[in-house]
């Protein structure tokens, strides 16, 4: 670091200019270096169940036929409620919950079980579970998924379709379901040699169709294990969605440093635990690793032992802190990309290495404004959705510089909890506003307006507050889960907020495959292209430090 006699730290060119102005001052020269300011272990899920928001695996219970022990042990009904239900069944068929109107206590319990039971006049189709055959998926090898299902109808299950979300473009594998498979409630979907997957996270979205048009869907996330069989990969800290990424250099004005957060994933495709040496070597390159210019490098020792579980993933996070005057600070300051390389060695001598691009990102802030009541789990889901939305944007090198948490409680919100017209939406924007340079995002209880679920004040929205255009509103996408808890659909809400904020930042609808700005919520994806990135760049709420 170049030290100014009056105490200020300055860059190299500024130092020369200052020296020319004050040649007689007493100067000292001290080179600043990047240090690893934090390193810590992250929890890791099993490789065959890697997603936080995967579909739960459970069996539906037929209320008309379930025995008392099934009602109490599987569903958790109290003994009195189970007896009450069985008594009701003796006098009439339980065709719908309306048939139990006189059994108030039972209904209170059934309300929590509404997503797990069915009535006599219903014929549900339900995917019970999806598991990779042999439990794990390995890179560069064919694999298969076993789909287990329940069908309470005479109509036959005929088609299964699996959409694969991975680091590349999504693809679909479908097959017809044979009569034998339909009868036994299990079908296998095979992925042949033309469709191998690389190491990393993959999400399978499975849809099953019956020949009367009924559909059931299921989501399963897995980590594709290396078949070589040890690998190291880098991703931005906290990455929870599929895709390809850059790590971001975050400028911290209070310490005048750039912070680079990076996650290290070591995947083990072997059936035995792999011990790693604790030494971690890192390098930042300007240009390609090995072919560009080495900016800075170093090494550190991991504070504890590193044991990669059998058929599993070990995850750790590292924070690189680069003060002004360091090489990495200089490259970030010039808005140039770098490549980070991290290498480690297994106790048996195998060397594994991973790379990722690091760059300064465009950043905007959001005020997340809850309109009306949110339960504790809905609150947690909302901020998981905001986190996922940030990750979607970060895949196109746009990040959040802040999330301000706000609430308009039920009493103050009045009729704004339900948005039912453009006038009401604009009244909401006019009546409420957060006086900062973040985008106001109103999360309302429900849209009851022409089938819409989100809207933005304008394309682009204003870069100042006040008036009837300064924000976006989205439906909170609520549902009740299989345990009877009020939840928000995290994946849908993440894309919905990202989509409406995208409008606010200047993006029009774009019907490209998997694009975030598709008008149809059903086939929207997490992609933003480079032209869209250039479009949002000039918005007044965008910062690129």
């Amino acid at each position, binding site marked *: 670091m170049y030290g100014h006699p009056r105490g200020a730290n300055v860059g190299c060119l500024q130092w020369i200019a200052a020296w020319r102005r004050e040649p007689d001052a007493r100067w000292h020269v001290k080179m600043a270096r990047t240090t690893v300011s934090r390193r810590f272990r992250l929890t890791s899920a099993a490789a065959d169940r890697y997603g936080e928001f995967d*579909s739960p695996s459970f069996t539906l219970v037929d209320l008309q036929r379930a025995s008392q022990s099934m009602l109490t042990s599987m569903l958790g009904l109290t003994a009195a409620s189970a007896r009450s239900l069985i008594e009701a069944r003796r006098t009439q068929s339980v065709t*719908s*919950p309306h048939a139990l109107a006189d059994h108030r206590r039972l*209904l209170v319990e*059934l309300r929590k079980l*509404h*997503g797990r039971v069915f009535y006599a006049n219903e014929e*549900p*189709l*339900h*995917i019970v579970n999806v598991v990779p055959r042999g439990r794990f998926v390995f890179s*560069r090898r064919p694999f298969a998924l076993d789909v287990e299902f329940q069908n309470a109808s005479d109509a036959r299950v*005929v*088609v299964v379709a699996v959409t694969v979300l991975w680091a590349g*473009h999504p693809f679909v*594998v479908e097959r017809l379901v044979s009569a034998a498979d339909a009868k036994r409630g299990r079908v296998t979907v095979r992925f042949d040699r033309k*469709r191998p997957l690389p190491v990393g996270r993959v999400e399978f979205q499975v849809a099953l*169709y019956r*020949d*009367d*048009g*009924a559909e059931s869907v299921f989501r399963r996330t897995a980590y594709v294990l290396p078949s070589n069989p040890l690998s190291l990969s880098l991703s931005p800290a906290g990455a929870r969605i599929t895709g*390809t990424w850059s790590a971001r250099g975050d400028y911290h004005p209070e310490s005048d440093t750039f912070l680079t957060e990076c996650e290290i994933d070591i995947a083990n495709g072997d059936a035995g635990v792999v011990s790693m040496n604790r030494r971690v070597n890192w390098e930042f390159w300007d240009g390609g690793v090995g072919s560009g210019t080495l900016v800075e490098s170093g090494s550190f020792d991991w504070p504890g032992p590193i044991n990669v579980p059998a058929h599993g993933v070990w995850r750790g996070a590292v924070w690189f802190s680069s003060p002004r005057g360091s090489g990495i600070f200089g490259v970030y300051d010039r*808005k140039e990309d770098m490549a980070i390389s991290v290498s480690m060695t297994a106790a048996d001598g195998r060397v594994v290495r991973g790379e990722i691009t690091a760059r300064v990102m465009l950043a905007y802030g959001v005020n997340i404004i809850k309109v009306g009541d949110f339960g504790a*789990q*809905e*609150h*947690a889901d909302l901020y998981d959705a905001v986190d996922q939305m940030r990750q979607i944007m970060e895949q196109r*090198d746009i990040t959040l510089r802040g999330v301000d*948490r706000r*609430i308009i409680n039920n009493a*103050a919100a009045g*009729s704004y909890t*339900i948005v039912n017209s453009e006038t009401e939406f604009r009244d909401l924007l*006019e009546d*409420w*506003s957060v006086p900062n340079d973040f985008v106001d995002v109103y999360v309302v*209880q429900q849209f*009851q307006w*022409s*089938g819409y679920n*989100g*809207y*933005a004040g304008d394309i682009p929205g204003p*870069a100042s507050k006040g008036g009837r255009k300064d924000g976006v509103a989205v439906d909170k996408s609520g*549902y009740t889960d299989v345990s009877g*808890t009020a939840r928000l*659909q995290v994946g*849908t809400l993440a894309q919905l907020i990202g*989509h409406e904020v995208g*409008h606010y930042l200047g993006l029009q609808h774009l019907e490209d495959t998997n694009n975030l700005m598709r*008008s*149809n*919520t*059903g*086939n929207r994806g997490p992609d933003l292209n*480079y032209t869209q990135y250039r479009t949002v760049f*000039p918005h007044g709420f*965008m910062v*690129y430090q």
Partner: protein
Amino acid sequence: MANPKRIPPKPPPPVIPGGKTRPSLRVSLAKHRIVAQRRALNLRLLSATCAFSTPSPDPVRLRDVELLRKVTSERFAAEQSLLRIQAVRQLGRVQSLEGVNHLVGLATSPVEGEYVRAAASAALMSVSPQISQVVLASLKRDRSRLVQQTAARLAGVGYGALGKRPTERRARKRRRKSRAPAQEGQPRRG
């Protein structure tokens, strides 16, 4: 504001072993027309959900009622919850006795989630205001605040004219500055 003159170059695409595409494998649905119809219906139900898009003038037809009822009864997967609510809303656009009966059942269900019941109440008002008045009267003291609010507003002003009341609007115009929503503390984890 970011300086547009400093837009960084497009980053090089990451190298993915085996390339970034894999071929899709589709089956013919010629023998399963209803499956094809269902898929098309799913797409129609979720199209034009952003208010910047133009809603389709005829997203559902009378022949779709049976499939719509099926969609609204698929309550076992979270991934289908948005589709389900959109199907409930579209049932309110089709003049069908079965559809109305189904909406009444959903709106008054003693076990159904409040989002579906609120959407069913609104859909019922648009397809059959007379029947909905009876249903809404029974929902004004419902256990769910969202259903209560929906019922009160629908019963008061009718669907399609659900603006704020004139007195509220005047009060709003008198207000000179917009209010800032209250700040929250640290989030609670459920």
